[in-house]
């Protein structure tokens, strides 16, 4: 599970950098918004991975 946490943290950092890069490198508002949204989606994916790493394995109920 430690790998999942590291992956999640790295994805969050990558998503943040993507958002900032979108603002710096693009000029039109729609393009900036689109790529910044993609960066935020990467961040949320990273957060989801980090969250998933903390969900304990649970016993299944017997039928």
């Amino acid at each position, binding site marked *: 599970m430690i790998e999942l*946490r590291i992956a999640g*943290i790295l994805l*969050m*950092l990558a*998503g*943040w*950098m993507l*958002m*900032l890069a979108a*603002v*710096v*490198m693009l000029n039109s*508002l729609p393009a*900036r*918004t689109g790529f*910044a*949204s993609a*960066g*935020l989606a990467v*961040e949320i994916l990273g*957060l989801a991975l*980090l*969250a998933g790493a*903390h*969900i*304990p394995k*649970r*016993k*299944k*109920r017997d039928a």
Partner: protein
Amino acid sequence: MPEIALPLFLCLLIPLALVGMALINTGLNRSRNAAHSVLSSLCAASVAVLAFVIVGSAISGVAGEPAHTISIAGRAWGWAGGGALFARSFHVTDWHGLLALIFQLFAVSLAAQIPVAGGAERWRLTATCLSTGFLAALVFPFVDFWIWGGGFLSQLGSNYGLGNGFVDAGGAGVIQLTGGLTALVMAWLLGARQGKFTGEGVPLAMPGHNAMIVLVGSLLALVGWMGLIGAGAVLFYNAGPGMLLMAVINTLVAASGGALSALLTTRTRFGKPDASLTANGWVCALVAVSASAPFVKIPEALLIGLVAGVVVVFAIEVVELRMQVDDPAGAISVHAVGGVWGLLAAGMFVSGQGQFLAQLIGVGTVIGFVVPLAYVVNYGMNRVVPHRVDPAGERQGLDLHELGAGAYPEFVTHREDFLRR
């Protein structure tokens, strides 16, 4: 003297928000941890103030003074203030800088209380203080500078034409989102309370011990929030009398909408209204509207509050049921989720082309900066100084285990000791 009277008065209202939040957190905990909960809030506020004065104020800097910048594609990005340690950059003649420092000290105290709520009932006091010191010295000040101190988020408007730059009058991002995300990190690292989840992952209810102080705390928080938003608007956005009055009205309208929408949502979902979720709806609406209260119209503030009240009810369920995170006071849902909604709503309702993109970048920046940093540092701290109390101490209650005295010495606090087996 008259020019400092109003902002100083507004700043001096902010401790009521601290009191309100301490009461809410304590009321939502079990009675065996009541004194420890309030003491943790007090200690967190104290540590936060000192850590900010010693280190944080150097990073958050003084508005208008030289700051550390880097040049990116020909534009200057402010990344840290240029202040000195021990707040030596502040001078008795610079009353605006001193007022801003007063405001920031209260703001960091408020931010420090939020993780205390998330880690309640199992977070040791020593570890709480250590973690808070780090938050106040090295996490909060950067976010503070970027948003309020003239840093790169506030410069998005002047540098890239994105509306007015990232807007956050009352700290929805600086205080609430930062604190809420740190609460999430601490809840992950500490794990759930004993008996919170069954082996199959079903959460069991652990009701708070005093709904009345939760609700009284919510009312007190309203006054504190009005001071917080008003002071932020005056100090960082040059708000005039009209904007200030609008901020007060919008804060009250949003909170009212949030409480009622949470009440109706719980009434619809569970058959009866839930007192603690209604209080959470009220506070979540305060959190959400704090980003934009001086700038939006009254119907927009009402909408922000109404949505916040509904969102917080569902967010608490998602955090507990889906994410399997134990959050006794709902701090993550109220402060982090409420903060995100408020910041994005500011992008929708505050005028300015590109304003929504500026808010999006701000939200992404706070999440991308706070979560990795808080997680890595607190994970490391936990290896050196264990954060979680031992199981026997948790069962006994932190009041007796850590403090040696309960909050309610005349009353039974361990019902299960007296049940027939």
